[in-house]
């Protein structure tokens, strides 16, 4: 505006790129499993999350794609809970459906431990599960997690502390695997 002394700044808001979302699938699936406590429900939750995100062009808020996906995962999770609670669920007495067994982990020998870890997360209160899923599973910063979950950073930190404490106490006898490259190289010489 001439003579006003003010300069209008135009900043472009980044658009979410649909083709880059696949890179978050594994992490989002783990977060979904942590929230639902079941792999099958996690599959449906994650697919519905992607369907919602991809339904129209989106802009990415501060915190990036992964935080945006976490926020949508949480909203989808709540909306599925609301839908489920509106009516009684009929449990079928039919025999079990034969489904294709999905690949669980790249280390099959750890499948039982992994199931135990997700079962421990499933035992946590909902808010604790969300904090764990956002920070320890999806790898968001505390600030990103607070934005994605619509709460304060201090609240996230406290929930995370308590959630981890419960998991550690419940799984005190489960040892994490030694990761390759996690320690200094050793020489036999």
């Amino acid at each position, binding site marked *: 505006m001439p003579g006003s002394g003010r300069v209008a700044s135009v900043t472009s808001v980044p658009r979410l790129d649909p083709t880059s979302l696949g890179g978050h699938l594994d992490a989002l699936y783990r977060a979904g499993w942590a929230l639902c406590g079941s792999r099958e429900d996690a599959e449906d939750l994650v697919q519905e999350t992607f369907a919602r995100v991809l339904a129209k062009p989106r802009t990415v808020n501060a915190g990036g794609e992964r935080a945006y996906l976490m926020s949508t995962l949480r909203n989808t999770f709540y909306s599925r809970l609301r839908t489920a609670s509106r009516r009684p669920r009929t449990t079928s007495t039919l025999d079990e459906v034969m*489904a294709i067994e999905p690949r669980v982990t790249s280390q099959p020998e750890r499948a039982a431990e992994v199931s135990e870890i997700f079962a421990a997360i499933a035992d946590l209160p909902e808010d604790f599960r969300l904090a764990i899923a956002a920070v320890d599973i999806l790898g968001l910063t505390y600030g990103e997690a607070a934005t994605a979950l619509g709460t304060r950073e201090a609240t996230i930190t406290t929930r995370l502390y308590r959630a981890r*404490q419960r998991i550690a106490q419940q799984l005190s006898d489960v040892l994490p695997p030694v990761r390759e490259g996690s320690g200094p190289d050793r020489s036999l010489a």
Partner: protein
Amino acid sequence: MTDHDPQSLQADLARLADGSLPASRQAELRAEVDRSPELARALSEQQHAIALLRSTDVVAPDSLRMRVEQEVRTATRSRRPRFRLTWVLPAATTAAAAVVIVLLAGSGGSSGAGLSQTAHLALAAAVDPAPSEARNDTLAETAAGIPFPYWQRSVGWRAVGARVDRVSDHSVVTVFYAGPKRSRVGYAIVGGAPLPVSGGRTTTKDGVSFTFLHEGPAHVVTWLRSGHTCVIAGRDVSNQTLLRLATAEIPQ
């Protein structure tokens, strides 16, 4: 433990354990931890939980990966410039008119174990009221993010009820529709990985494979929508009617 308030101390321990505590506070807290067995145990628990959680290198199943890739392809396609529709739509209509129906070997077949159970649900009684119309020819009922079609305008079938079942770890949502001459079908969408299909007669339309089976006297058609098994079953409807309903779908 120390003269810090408990919540801020817990926050600092959580951050120290995952490495996000500012360096300026780290040395001070580590010294406190060294002096207090209680703090040392609390920190050790945080570290143990983090190590366990970070060790869960679970990968998404291939079936989910394929479904998400399909969602991405669909989203990418639908965001192409609108002018292309001027020739895409007539082309699609022409293609639809020139449907090639491929009949594979076999004159029929009974549905396999998983499909049989889903077909039973589609033939069962409704438990819940009919979902209302949402928008874009869909009902306000979804399964695994997939909306059920609103058929009243397009083919004259109205939703009359619904039910939700859980078979093993699969959710099965079914919407029931009533058509002319008191005919009735159930439309079930199965959550999770697609169910295996064996036998039956297969028809391909617009690139989608529809398999016709029978469940006792009832006719059944099954196909995939966004990677999920869909089943329509009815006792007093023909395979042609089932195919007409299955292909009167809403756009994906």
